[in-house]
C-alpha cells in the first residue's frame, strides 16, 4: 500500500523528496532493521561526544 494520492501530489512533500540523499537510503535498505537501529545508537553516541566536545570548547572560551 502506498501513501495516499493527495500526499503524492503535495508540493511540499515532493520538494522534500527531491532533496533526499538516495545513496543513504539505498545504504540503509541493505541493512537489517536491527542494524539500522544499532546504527542509530552509534549516531546518538557520536552526537553526545560532539556535544561534550562543544561544551569543553565553550568552557575554555
Amino acid at each position: 500500500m502506498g501513501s495516499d494520492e493527495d500526499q503524492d501530489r503535495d508540493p511540499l512533500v515532493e520538494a522534500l523528496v527531491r532533496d533526499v540523499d538516495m545513496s543513504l537510503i539505498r545504504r540503509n535498505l541493505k541493512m537489517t532493521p536491527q542494524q539500522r537501529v544499532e546504527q542509530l545508537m552509534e549516531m546518538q553516541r557520536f552526537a553526545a561526544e560532539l556535544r561534550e566536545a562543544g561544551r569543553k570548547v565553550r568552557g575554555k572560551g
Partner: protein
Amino acid sequence: MTDYRKALEVLRGGGVRFIVIGGVAATAHGSSQLTNDLDVVYAREPDDIARLAAALAPYHPYLRGVPAGLPFKLDATTIKNGLNFTLDTDFGPLDLLGEATGGGTYAALLPATVTLDLFGGPCLCVDLATLIRLKRAAGRPKDILALGELEAILRASASGD
C-alpha cells in the same frame, strides 16, 4: 542516549503489548535521521496496564522535563488515569502513547504493523505507509521534514531500488 535494545527487552520481557512508532520506526524502515526517544503505542486493557507498570518500575520512569521530587509514580492507577506519558527511564527517553495522533489506539494500529526481528525477538512496528500518515497527522515541523525521506524510502522499496 537511549538503549533501544534494553528498552525493547524490558517491554517484551514484561509481556507488554506495544507498537513502535515515531523516529525509531522510521529508522527501522531505513531513515537516516537522528532520533533520541522511543515512541510506543501500548495496549490499555487492565492486564496490559498492570504488565506495563510492573515492567517499567525497576527502571525508574519519571516525567521528562519535570523537576525531580514531584509525587509521580508510574503505577497501574497512573497509567489507567492518564493516556500519553513522556518519560525518562534508566534506559533513556520513552514515550508511552495510549493513542497516537492520526492512528488511534493499539487495537486500531495493529492491522497496520509489520513484525520485525529486533534484538532477539519479534517487535511490532507500524508499517511505512501508516508511519507517513502518522507523521502528517502529527504535523510538527520535524514530522513534516521527515516526510520527504520516508516517502522516498516508500518509493524506493516499492520500485525495488
